[in-house]
C-alpha cells in the first residue's frame, strides 16, 4: 500500500503522566503553531481532485442528466452519477435511507447528484458547471409540526415521521394548583468545526481502497463505504487523518464514498476537500425544535406533572434522528423528580437541511424548554429560580419518567448551590473598556441602555449509547522491553477529534502498567470497533477497553513471573502483586524488575469491553432502563444587555459539573469551557437560517460563532462523585455543559429585559421588538 504524506503521526508521540494528572497534549503546540496536519493537508503523488455537484433545490424531481460537455473538459478523469455506484446506493448512520448520489429526486438543497474527478480542483469545478441536470422543482415540505401530523406529502416510502417516542408515567390526567405553559423554539445550530470535510482515497492493488479521512467513527464509515462500493469489509480500510473538530457533525458520511468511487474508477488517489460554503451543505446540523410544555405544581413549587410535545425537524434524511428523539423524550423534563409525566416527541422528515448528531443530542432542545418553564414557574410563585429547582431536583435513587432509577451520584442540588454561591462579578464601571460592553469594540454603548441580569439553569444528559445498543470498544495493549526499559504500545480505532483521547489512553496505560514509555498507534480499522467519539462516551468505553486490555497484560506478566520464579499463582495472588514504576511490587516489597520479567517476550493483549447493558424503551410508554449513566451540569450566567439595541455581553458564565472522576483535570476543564461556549453560541448568535428549505447564511460571515470577546472567563467547580459502575468512577464530560449554558444565558437576558424570550438564538430584534 502506498502511503500518503502528511499523516498526523505527531499525535501518537508520548506524553507523561498517569490518571488524574494533566499532561500536555501531544497536538497542542502543533495546533497553536499551525503545524498540525489536518485531513485537508493530505497529499499523494499522482492524486487527482474530486468535486461534488449538488442540488440547488430543496425538493425536485430529476428529469435528465447530461454529462457530455463535462466529459470534454481537458483534465477530467471521470464524471460519475448514481448509475456508477458499484454497490448499494444507500447510506445512513442509523437507517440507510440516503442515496450516495441522488437518483430521480433530490430532497434537500445541497444533496449530491454527480461527482467529477480532475487533475486540478479548478478543472473539476469547471467540469461540474458543464453537467446539465434537468429538475422539475417540487413544493418543499418545511413545517415539522405539519409533517408530524401527517399533513404533508410523504418524502419517503415510510411517511414523514422518522420516530415518535411517547413517555408515560403516573396519572395522565393529574391536575395542579399552579400551571404554567409555554411554546419554545430552538434554531438550527451548526457544529461549525473549522476543518472542512476532507480526505484522500487511494486505490489498492487488491481491488480495495485505503481511505484517509477525518471522522468520528471509523467502523460505521467502513460499513457504509464497503456496502456502497460492493466490497467486502476487509477491502475497505480506513485510517484517521487529522480532525479539525467534530461535535457530532462527522458521524454521518460526507465525501467518504464519493472519493472512493472516484479512486476505484480512475485507479488514482483522489483528494476531496469541501470549501466552507460546501461544508454547510456537507454535514448534518442540530435539529431545530418546536416544544410545547405544560408544568403543574403545588403552591410550594413542587412539580405535580409535566406534559410536553416536542417536534424535531430531521430534514431530508434520517441520520441519527431516531436516537435524538429518544433523548429529547426520555430526558424531556430535565433533572427533576416528577410523578406524572406525559411526553411525546416526534422526529420528522422535511426538505430542510438534514439534521443529526450535535453535542447534547436532543437534550439541548428539551433543556432550553424545561428550564425556561422552571423560571416561569418560579416567577408565578414568586420563588427564587434556584429554590424552585432545588425543591424538585433529582438525587441518587430518584426515578426518571422512564421508570429508570438513578443508581449513582446525582448531585443536582449541590451543583445549583455551587453556582449560586459563587461571588457575583463586579458591575461594569470605571474607565471605559469597549471590550467589556455589549456590542464590544464596535462602539455601540458607553454604558447607555445597559442592564445586568442573572440566570440559572441545570441540565441532564445520558452518557454512552442507550436503548440496548451493543456499545463496546476494542483496545490492544502490547508490553515489551525497548532499550532496556519496559514500554507499552496502545492501539484503538477510537477517533481523536481534538478532545484529547490519545492523551487519556496513554495516562490509563501508564497508571495500569506502571510504565513511563507509552506510545499510541495511529487509529485505523486494522483493529476492532471502538464506537463513535460521541455521546460523551470515549473515555468511558475506550478508556474501559484500554484498562481491560491492561488488566489482561498484567495477568500475563504475573503468569510469566510465576513461571520464572516458581511462585504459584495463588501465592502471587496473595502477594497482591502490581506493576508500578517499571517494577513488579507487592504491597510492601519489590518482587522483580518488569524488564527482567519480560525479557525478550512481548505481551500483547486485545480486549473488547462493554459497559453494563441497557434496555430498549417500551414503544407505548417509554418505560425502560434505557441509559447507562447520567451527567449533570449547572450554570449561572451574568449578562449585560443593551436593552435599546438588543446587544448582549455575557459577563460571567460559571459552571458546576459532576465528572465522577477527572482522568485529566485540564481536559475536563477544556470540555466544560468549550461546551459552555457552544451553548453561549446557541443562546445569542448561532443559527442556520433557512427560507423555503434553502440555507441563507452558509458562511462564517453570516453564521456567527462566539469570539474571545463573546466568551467570558468561567469559574468552574468540578465535583468528583465516583460512579461505581464506570471505569475509575468517571462520568462523561463533553455534553452536559452545552445543555445548561444556553437556558442560563437566556434566563439572564430575561431578567435584564423582562421579556419572555421563548426562542434561541435570541436576536437583537427580539429584545428591541423591532
Amino acid at each position, binding site marked *: 500500500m502506498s502511503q500518503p504524506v502528511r499523516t498526523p503521526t505527531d499525535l501518537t508521540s508520548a506524553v507523561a503522566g498517569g490518571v488524574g494528572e494533566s499532561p500536555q497534549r501531544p497536538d497542542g503546540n502543533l495546533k497553536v503553531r499551525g503545524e498540525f496536519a489536518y485531513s485537508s493537508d493530505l497529499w499523494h503523488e499522482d492524486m487527482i481532485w474530486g468535486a461534488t455537484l449538488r442540488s440547488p433545490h430543496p425538493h425536485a424531481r430529476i428529469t435528465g442528466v447530461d454529462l457530455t460537455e463535462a466529459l470534454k473538459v481537458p483534465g477530467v478523469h471521470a464524471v460519475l452519477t448514481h448509475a456508477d455506484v458499484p454497490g448499494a446506493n444507500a447510506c445512513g448512520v442509523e437507517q440507510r435511507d440516503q442515496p450516495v448520489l441522488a437518483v430521480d429526486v433530490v430532497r434537500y438543497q445541497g444533496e449530491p447528484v454527480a461527482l467529477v474527478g480532475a487533475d486540478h480542483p479548478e478543472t473539476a469545478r469547471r467540469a461540474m458547471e458543464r453537467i446539465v441536470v434537468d429538475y422539475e422543482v417540487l413544493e418543499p415540505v418545511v413545517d415539522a409540526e405539519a409533517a408530524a401530523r401527517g399533513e404533508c406529502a410523504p418524502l419517503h416510502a415510510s411517511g414523514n415521521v422518522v420516530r415518535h417516542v411517547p413517555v408515560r408515567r403516573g396519572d395522565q390526567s393529574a391536575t395542579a394548583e399552579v400551571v404554567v405553559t409555554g411554546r419554545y423554539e430552538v434554531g438550527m445550530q451548526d457544529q461549525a468545526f473549522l476543518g472542512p470535510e476532507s480526505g484522500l482515497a487511494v486505490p489498492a492493488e487488491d481491488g480495495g481502497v485505503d481511505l484517509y479521512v477525518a471522522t468520528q467513527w471509523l467502523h460505521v464509515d467502513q460499513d457504509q463505504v464497503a456496502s456502497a462500493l460492493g466490497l467486502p469489509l476487509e477491502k475497505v480500510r480506513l485510517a484517521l487523518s487529522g480532525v479539525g473538530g467534530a461535535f457530532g457533525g462527522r458521524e454521518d458520511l460526507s465525501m467518504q464514498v464519493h472519493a472512493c468511487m472516484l479512486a476505484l474508477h480512475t485507479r488514482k488517489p483522489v483528494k476531496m476537500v469541501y470549501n466552507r460554503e460546501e461544508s454547510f451543505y456537507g454535514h448534518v446540523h442540530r435539529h431545530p425544535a418546536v416544544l410545547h410544555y405544560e408544568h403543574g405544581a403545588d403552591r410550594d413549587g413542587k412539580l405535580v406533572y409535566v406534559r410536553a410535545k416536542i417536534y424535531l425537524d430531521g430534514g431530508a434524511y434520517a441520520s441519527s434522528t431516531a436516537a435524538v428523539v429518544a433523548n429529547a423524550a426520555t430526558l424531556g423534563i430535565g433533572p427533576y423528580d416528577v410523578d406524572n409525566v406525559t411526553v411525546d416527541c416526534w422526529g420528522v422528515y422535511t426538505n430542510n437541511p438534514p439534521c443529526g448528531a450535535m453535542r447534547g443530542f436532543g437534550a439541548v432542545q428539551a433543556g432550553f424548554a424545561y428550564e425556561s418553564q422552571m423560571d416561569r414557574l418560579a416567577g408565578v410563585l414568586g420563588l427564587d429560580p434556584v429554590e424552585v429547582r432545588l425543591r424538585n431536583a433529582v438525587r441518587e435513587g430518584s426515578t426518571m419518567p422512564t421508570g429508570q432509577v438513578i443508581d449513582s451520584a446525582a448531585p443536582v442540588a449541590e451543583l445549583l448551590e455551587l453556582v449560586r454561591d459563587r461571588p457575583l462579578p463586579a458591575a461594569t464601571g470605571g474607565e471605559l473598556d469597549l471590550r467589556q460592553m455589549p456590542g464590544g469594540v464596535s462602539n455601540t454603548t458607553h454604558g447607555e441602555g445597559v442592564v445586568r441580569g442573572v440566570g440559572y439553569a441545570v441540565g441532564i444528559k445520558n452518557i454512552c449509547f442507550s436503548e440496548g445498543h451493543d456499545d463496546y470498544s476494542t483496545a490492544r495493549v502490547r508490553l515489551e522491553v525497548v532499550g532496556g526499559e519496559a514500554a507499552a504500545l496502545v492501539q484503538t480505532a477510537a477517533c481523536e477529534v481534538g478532545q484529547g483521547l490519545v492523551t487519556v489512553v496513554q495516562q490509563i496505560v501508564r497508571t495500569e502498567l506502571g510504565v513511563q514509555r507509552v506510545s499510541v498507534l495511529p487509529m485505523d480499522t486494522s483493529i476492532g470497533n471502538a464506537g463513535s467519539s460521541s455521546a460523551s462516551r470515549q473515555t468511558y468505553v475506550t478508556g474501559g477497553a484500554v484498562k481491560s486490555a491492561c488488566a489482561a497484560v498484567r495477568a500475563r506478566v504475573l503468569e510469566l513471573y510465576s513461571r520464572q520464579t516458581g511462585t504459584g499463582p495463588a501465592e502471587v495472588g496473595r502477594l497482591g502483586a502490581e506493576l508500578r514504576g517499571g517494577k513488579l511490587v507487592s504491597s510492601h516489597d519489590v518482587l522483580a524488575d518488569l524488564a527482567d520479567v519480560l525479557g525478550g517476550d512481548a505481551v500483547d493483549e486485545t480486549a473488547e469491553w462493554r459497559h453494563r447493558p441497557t434496555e430498549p424503551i417500551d414503544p407505548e410508554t417509554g418505560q425502560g432502563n434505557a441509559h447507562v449513566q447520567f451527567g449533570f451540569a449547572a450554570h449561572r450566567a451574568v449578562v449585560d444587555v443593551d436593552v435599546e439595541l*438588543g446587544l448582549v455581553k455575557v459577563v460571567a458564565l460559571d459552571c458546576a459539573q459532576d465528572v465522577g472522576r477527572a482522568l485529566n483535570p485540564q481536559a475536563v476543564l477544556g470540555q466544560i469551557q468549550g461546551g459552555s461556549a457552544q451553548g453561549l453560541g446557541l443562546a445569542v448568535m448561532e443559527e442556520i437560517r433557512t427560507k423555503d428549505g434553502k440555507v441563507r447564511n452558509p458562511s462564517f460571515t453570516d453564521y456567527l460563532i462566539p469570539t474571545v470577546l463573546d466568551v467570558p472567563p468561567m469559574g468552574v467547580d468540578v465535583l468528583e462523585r465516583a460512579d461505581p459502575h464506570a471505569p475509575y468512577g468517571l462520568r462523561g464530560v463533553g455534553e452536559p455543559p452545552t445543555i445548561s449554558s444556553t437556558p442560563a444565558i437566556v434566563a439572564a437576558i430575561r431578567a435584564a429585559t423582562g421579556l419572555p424570550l421563548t426562542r434561541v438564538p435570541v436576536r437583537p430584534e427580539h429584545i428591541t421588538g423591532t
Partner: protein
Amino acid sequence: MDFLRPTTLAEALAAKAERPDLVPIAGGTDVMVELNFDHRRPPGLLDLTGIAELARWSADGDVLRVGAAVPYARIVQDLGDRLPGLAMASRTVGSPQIRNRGTVGGNLGSASPAGDTHPVLIAGDAVVEVASARGARSIPADEFYLGVKRSALEPDELITAVRLAAATGPQQFAKVGTRNAMVIAVCSFAVSLHPERLRVGAAVGSAAPTPRRASAAEEFLSAELTSAGLWESREPLPDSVQRRFGELVAEAASPIDDVRGSAAYRRHALAVLARRSLGWAWREHSGGGNERCA
C-alpha cells in the same frame, strides 16, 4: 488566470488600460474570499502590493492623503490622533490578521454597502483619488458609491488614495453587529463635528444600497448648533435635539430585511447609534474628555 505584479503606478495603469478586466488586489480580504467561494473568476489579478507609493500616507498641511494600500492596522497605529473616525472604523474591521491585510482602497473598490470605513469618509468629506492612463481625478466620497458594490470607478481606473482633512473636532463611529468582535455591520453610523466650518457630517452604512450621507440630519443639527450658539458655548445638547438628530439619521436610511437583520431593526438601531454617538462627540467638544477608547 493571469497574475500581474507591477512595481510602479504607471505600469499598473498601463496594464489596467490595456486590460480593464483585470481585478486589482491589495490585501485580498474581499477578492480572495470571492475567488475561494467561486463567486468570481476574473481573467487576471493586478496585484498592487508591489507599488510602494500606494502603501504610504502623507500629510500636506491639514490634509492627509492615505494611500489606497495602507492597511487598517497602520491607520489605527499612525493616524488615530488626526483621523480618529477613520481609525475607529478601521479598528472594527475583522480580526487583527484582517486589519493587517485589508485596506481603505479595498473597502472603496468593493463598494459594499456594509464596508466599515464608508460612513466615516462621507461624514469627513473625504475625496477619493483615482487614476488611469488617461489621467487622475478626484471624486467626493458621497459621489463615489453608485449602488450595491458599484462605484464611480471607470474600468480602466485604479483607486490611488483617499484625502481627508485632519479632525478639527470630535468624531465617532459606531456599528451594530450581532457579535462583540469580528462582525459585519448590520448598520453603522459616523459623525464628525467641524466646528471651524460650523458644520456636522453624518452618514450611515449598511442601511441602504450605498453608504449614504444623512443630509437632513446634518442640516438640522448644524442649524441647531449655530442658532443656539452652542458651538461656542459648548453647553450640553438638549435631549430633544439629540433625539431629533437620531430620527433624521434613521430616516436617511432605506434598509432591507435580510439574514443579518430586519429593516425595522436597522432604522431603530441607527436612531440609537446616532443619538448616542452625537452625545459622545458633544461631550468631547464640551471638554468632557475623550470618548474614544480601546
